[in-house]
Each structure stands twice: as C-alpha cells, then as structure tokens.
C-alpha cells in the first residue's frame, strides 16, 4: 500500500501511465499482434527525443526563462557536417563524432556568450543562435544528402537482443544524466541555481561556470542526437531537427520536470518520449484526420499534465 502510494507521488509516473495506456489502445487494434513491432519502433524513435530531452531538461532545471531553442539547428549542423566529413568512409566514424561534439561545444559556447556577455534572455539568445547555426548548415553543403558510413548506418538501424541500438545509447546517456543529477555536486548545483540564483551565488556556488557547462551539455547532446539521427535516417537533411524543438520541451515538462526549475527527473523523459511517439501512432492507427489528430494530441497532453501536475508548486 505505502510503496504503491509513494510511487504515485513520483512526478514521472503519469507519463509512464499515459504511455502505457496509449500503447495498449494501439495494440488492441490488432489484438496484440503489433505489440512487439510497435514497442521496438517506439523505443527507436523515443531514443532521439530522450537524448535531446535530457539536454533540454538540464537547461530547464536552471530556472525560469532558461530554455535552449537552438537544439534543432544544432542537430542539423552536426549531422550535415559530420556526414560530410565522414564521406561514407567507415574509418572516419570517430572523427565524425568528434566533429559533431565540437560543433555542440561551439554552439553551447555561443549560446552562453550571448546570455552572459550580452544579457540576452536565453529564449531569444538561443533562438538567434539557431538562425545563425541553421545558416551555417545551409552554407556548408547546400542541403546535399550524404550517406552515412555503412557500419554506422547498420549500427543505428539494428538491434541487440531485440532492443534497438539507439535506445541502448539513449539509455546509457540517461544513466549518466541520472548519475550527474542525483549523485554529484554538479547536480545539486544546477538544482540550487534553478530554485534561486542569488541564493546559489551566496552559497558559494560558481553559478556562471555551472550554467555554462549546462548549456554546453545540452548543445553537445543535441549534436550527438543529430549525428545519430542523420545516420539512422540515411543522411542529414536541412530540416531534420525541426520536429525536435517542441518535442524536446514537451518531453521534459510532460515527464514531470518542474518548468519553474530546480527539480528534474530522468525517468519521466523516457515515459514522455514513448508517449509522444505512441500517441501519434495511435491516432494514425485509428485513421483519424490531421485536424482531429492534432486536437487529440493537445487534449491528451493537457490531461496528462492535469493529472500529474495538479499538486506541485510551480511558477508557471
């Protein structure tokens, strides 16, 4: 009784429940025959949302107003440049990954420079940055689609023991994130900064350093996600990240992270990512038109947050 009760007080439980209900409703159409296929697909595509979502979650934890809108553009730039560099050669996989990470670092640096040096609110700073990054992506190869190296393409599209490889990568990143948040000083610091920046400063926390690292982390995760996605879908496209703007925010908040900052959780990201994929699949499966589908998606998001967020305090 009590453990169950305590489980229901976890902020992330609702996204998992919602994901499960939607999954169940979807497989019922085929009386369960699609269970395996659907689960695998869900794990595969949720993985990308999880990776970008975790980065976004760290940023959102920094407190009200902190958000990274440059995620899609960073994904695109990292994907295009890395694939161009690798040029279908298996030997270049590691340099490609390195370049993607460096791009993430540069974008993160740019973001924080704008936020700190020019005091531009993060939402606008990262938006402006994303325009520049997007232009850079266009400029580098004018939208030509280059194929990923065969080993990478193979790796990202196959499974190990029935679990998609990308999902395993996302799981490892989630574990790292969980560890950072729960067990390290850094995790305490970002939570403290999210609750009150002046208080964090006066408690001796290196506020700027911590925020800087967090923006770097988010941008690097976005570029890693872009790298993987480009390999998974057989080449980088200029618009490949656009979906992940709303997605990265939605999975964070549906997952039970406080939008007002200071409180985050990793399991919720998974629940929410699975949910966001499954809900579209469910509505597609039931053959609903685009209009109805959008309305249902919206209403479901609101109901989940109503169930989950009713009692928790939040600024917004």
């Amino acid at each position, binding site marked *: 009784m009590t453990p169950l009760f305590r489980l229901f007080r976890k902020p992330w439980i609702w996204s998992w429940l919602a994901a499960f209900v939607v999954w169940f409703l*979807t*497989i019922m*159409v*085929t009386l369960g*025959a*699609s*269970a*395996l*296929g*659907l689960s695998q*697909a*869900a794990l*595969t*595509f949720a993985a990308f949302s999880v990776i970008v979502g975790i980065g976004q979650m760290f940023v959102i934890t920094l407190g009200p107003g902190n958000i990274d809108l440059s995620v899609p553009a960073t994904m695109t730039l990292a994907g295009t440049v890395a694939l161009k560099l690798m040029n279908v050669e298996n030997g270049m996989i590691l340099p490609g990954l390195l370049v993607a990470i460096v791009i993430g670092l540069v974008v993160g640096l740019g973001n924080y420079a704008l936020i700190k040096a020019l005091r531009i609110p993060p939402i606008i700073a990262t938006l402006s940055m994303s*325009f520049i990054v*997007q232009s850079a992506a*266009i400029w580098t*190869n*004018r*939208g*030509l*689609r*280059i*194929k990923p190296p065969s080993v990478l393409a193979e790796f990202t*599209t196959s499974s190990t023991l029935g679990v998609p490889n990308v999902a395993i990568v996302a799981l490892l990143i989630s574990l790292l994130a969980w560890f950072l948040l729960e067990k390290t000083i850094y995790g305490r610091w970002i939570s403290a900064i999210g609750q009150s920046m002046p208080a964090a400063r006066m408690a001796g926390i290196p506020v700027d350093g911590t925020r800087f690292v967090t923006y770097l982390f988010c941008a690097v995760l976005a570029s890693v996600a872009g790298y993987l*996605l480009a390999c*998974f*879908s*057989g*080449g980088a*496209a*200029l*618009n*490949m990240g*656009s*979906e992940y703007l709303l997605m990265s925010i939605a999975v964070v908040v549906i997952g039970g992270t406080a939008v007002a900052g200071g409180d985050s959780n990793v399991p919720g990201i998974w629940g929410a990512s699975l949910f966001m*994929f*499954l809900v*579209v*699949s469910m509505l*597609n*499966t039931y*053959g609903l038109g*685009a*209009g109805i589908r*959008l309305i249902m998606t919206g209403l479901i998001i609101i109901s989940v947050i109503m169930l989950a967020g009713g009692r928790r305090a939040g600024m917004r």
Partner: protein
Amino acid sequence: ETSAKKIALSNNYAGNSWRQAMLTSWGKVTGEAVKAGTVAAADPFTTAENQATEQAAQIQNMILQGYDAIVLNAASPTALNGAVKEACDAGIIVVSFDGIVTEPCAWRIAVNFKEMGRSEVEYLSKKLPDGGNLLEIRGLAGVFVDDEISAGIHEGVKQFPQFKIAGSVHGDWAQDVAQKAVAGILPSLPDIAGVVTQGGDGYGAAQAIAATDRKMPIIIMGNREDELKWWKEQKDAKSYETMSVSIAPGVSTLAFWVAQQILDGKEVKKDLVVPFLRIDQDNLETNLANTQAGGVANVEYTQADAIKVIESAK
C-alpha cells in the same frame, strides 16, 4: 529589351534539398543572364521560416526596392494575395511557380498536382492488377500542395476501386518525419501492396519498412538522389519496379524566363502548365547519372524553352 530590368525571387523556404537545388539553378541560370546583359539584376530572397506573413513583408519590401518583376514561390496560394495585389498596383509583374497564388493579376506556372496523385494510383493499377492495401504518406497538413496531391490520390483510388487506403500519415515532406510516422503505424497495418507518396518521402518509408520483416511494397518515389539510388540498388538486386514523380526544382528558371518575356512585352497567358518530372524503370539510370550525389533530379530551362511553353499555351 529588358537589359535595364530588375527581377527578384521571393522564396519562402530554404530548409530542404529541393529548395536548395531550386536556388542553385536560379543562381546558375540568372547569373549567366545578368552577365549576358539580358537583365540588370536577379536577386534571390529567402525567409527564415515557411510563413506567409513573412513572405508578404518580403514582397512589400521588394516593391519598395523598385524591382520590375517578382518571381514567387509562395507559402500560401491565397494568403499572399494582399501583398501581390499591392505589387501589381505598383506596376510590378508577378510570376508565381510551384507554390502559386490565386490573385488574378499574377501569372501562374502550375503543376497539375491532382494529376500527379492520380497517376501514381494509375501506375500501381498496371503493376498490381489485383489491387490491395495502400499506405498514403502525406505532406504538411493545411498546405495546399498536400491537399491537392492527396485529393488526386483519392480520385485515383475511386477510379481503381481494387485499391484501398489502409492507412495515412503525415510525413511533413521530411524524410525522417515520414520514417517515424510510418514506423509507428506499420505494426498495426495489414499487408501493404503499395505506398503512395508526395515525392521525397519514399526513402524514409523504405527505411521504416526495411526495419520490419514485411515484404517490400511498391513505393512511389520522388526525385531525391537517395530515393533513386535505393531504387537502383533494389532494381539490380531483385528487379524491383516502381516509378518516380516530382517537380523539377529548375522550374524556377522557367519562371525567370517567363518573367523576362513578359517584361519584354510578350503577350503571355496568365496560366501556364509545366509537366511534372517522371522517371520510369527504363530511364532510371540516365536520370540517376544526371543527378548530383545527395541532390535532386533536375531540369533547367532556357529562354527558348520558355518561349516554347508560352507559345504552346496560346
């Protein structure tokens, strides 16, 4: 005589390879035209996001800048009418292509999107006389090209009732979105005989289907190189057969020449039609050879082509 005339390209989106190819073609053809002194300038302008309001502002700026003609790929067939009307009132020639506008004072170089959708089903009916289930991949909801092609496909299904649309997803013309949407609906679908697309989503669908143990259906392809290449591989390996329909991005150059002809005082009908680009099993290799790696199958137009199109419309 148009050597003193200035032409602007108003483009609403640059975020995919088709648009990039379109801009490249424009740059190539108009660059030569400017050098040859045919026109004084041919500047391309692009908005950051696919938004009618921003493009309307862009057109209004072009009016201020004193261009003589505006070549327009519109974000919306109707939402730019206000701005287009103001341009016309200012004595500017407006030629729309691909994404055309309904404002009567503008010229339209249109593709018959409905016919494009219908022809896909017609093709399938030849390959699959017994019919079967179809999966439809649509574009971006609320955009008119999506609505037109889809209407054509549904018309085709009515014409060939042996087909049934078993599922329909929106791929937003982005191949990763298409891949995701298809992967999500696929487990719940019965056997699929064919996939009808709007061009550009074929490879994503193929990827999603390849990830399952289903038999590969006939996927109608678009004109991106990766689609054609995949088709070629399948053709070589297991004599896979399909076709590809699309619009050549080089149509922007046709629009350029048409605008130039109008400026030159030629009588041109308001509605011109360009054929869509179709690739079949037998001319796949030639087309693939002409396509840049990672690019889009393309056709560029010359002044003579434009004159021919104008003449034939009369």
